[in-house]
């Protein structure tokens, strides 16, 4: 049963600490999305990659957030330094996309981040 795997599922950290969230996309999927979900803003697209190259990271605060795909099986989202306002659920999703056909995204179960 292919699925997107995110680790950790929960993370509590102190303000100022570095946080790294990891995502293993579904094998064969070439597109990876990072979303942040909060009560106030809903689901916000932070960044997405195709074939490991960043296509759009305009939704991501550049001063503290960074997203990478070291290889096709791993995507990372880092926050350094973390702040209480970063507390949210972070979702990774992957899709198999070959323009002009775009398929649906499959979501991981999310990382619930609490910054105290």
């Amino acid at each position: 049963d292919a699925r997107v795997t995110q680790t950790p599922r929960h993370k509590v950290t102190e303000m100022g600490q570095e946080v790294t969230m990891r995502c293993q996309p579904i094998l064969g999927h070439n597109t990876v999305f990072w979303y942040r979900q909060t009560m106030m803003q809903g689901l916000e697209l932070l960044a997405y990659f195709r074939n490991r190259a960043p296509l759009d990271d305009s939704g991501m605060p550049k001063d503290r957030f960074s997203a990478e795909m070291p290889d096709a099986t791993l995507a990372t989202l880092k926050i350094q330094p973390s702040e209480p306002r970063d507390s949210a659920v972070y979702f990774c999703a992957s899709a198999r996309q070959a323009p002009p056909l775009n398929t649906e995204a499959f979501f991981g179960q999310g990382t619930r981040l609490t910054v105290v």
Partner: protein
Amino acid sequence: AQSVTQPDIHITVSEGASLELRCNYSYGATPYLFWYVQSPGQGLQLLLKYFSGDTLVQGIKGFEAEFKRSQSSFNLRKPSVHWSDAAEYFCAVGANRGSQGNLIFGKGTKLSVKP
């Protein structure tokens, strides 16, 4: 720019009653449209999608949605709601041309089901 509006933040229906969740989108061409459902503490699961062709699409769990280009809408419907349908529902629009592939979500509609 793409955008999605879900006008209803919270809806309560009785079990067995019919359901319609509204979704309006903004996109310059024919979009790809999706409905996802999120149960508490879980990720998002795809209910159904529209890419092209028949404007009435069937999904899982007895849901359907109708694409109406003239109204820029993609409303989700179910004829008879079950208690297990209580969840949050998200409409999303995807770009369908060129190298774009981002998905933009509405803010969601929370569905509560009364016994």
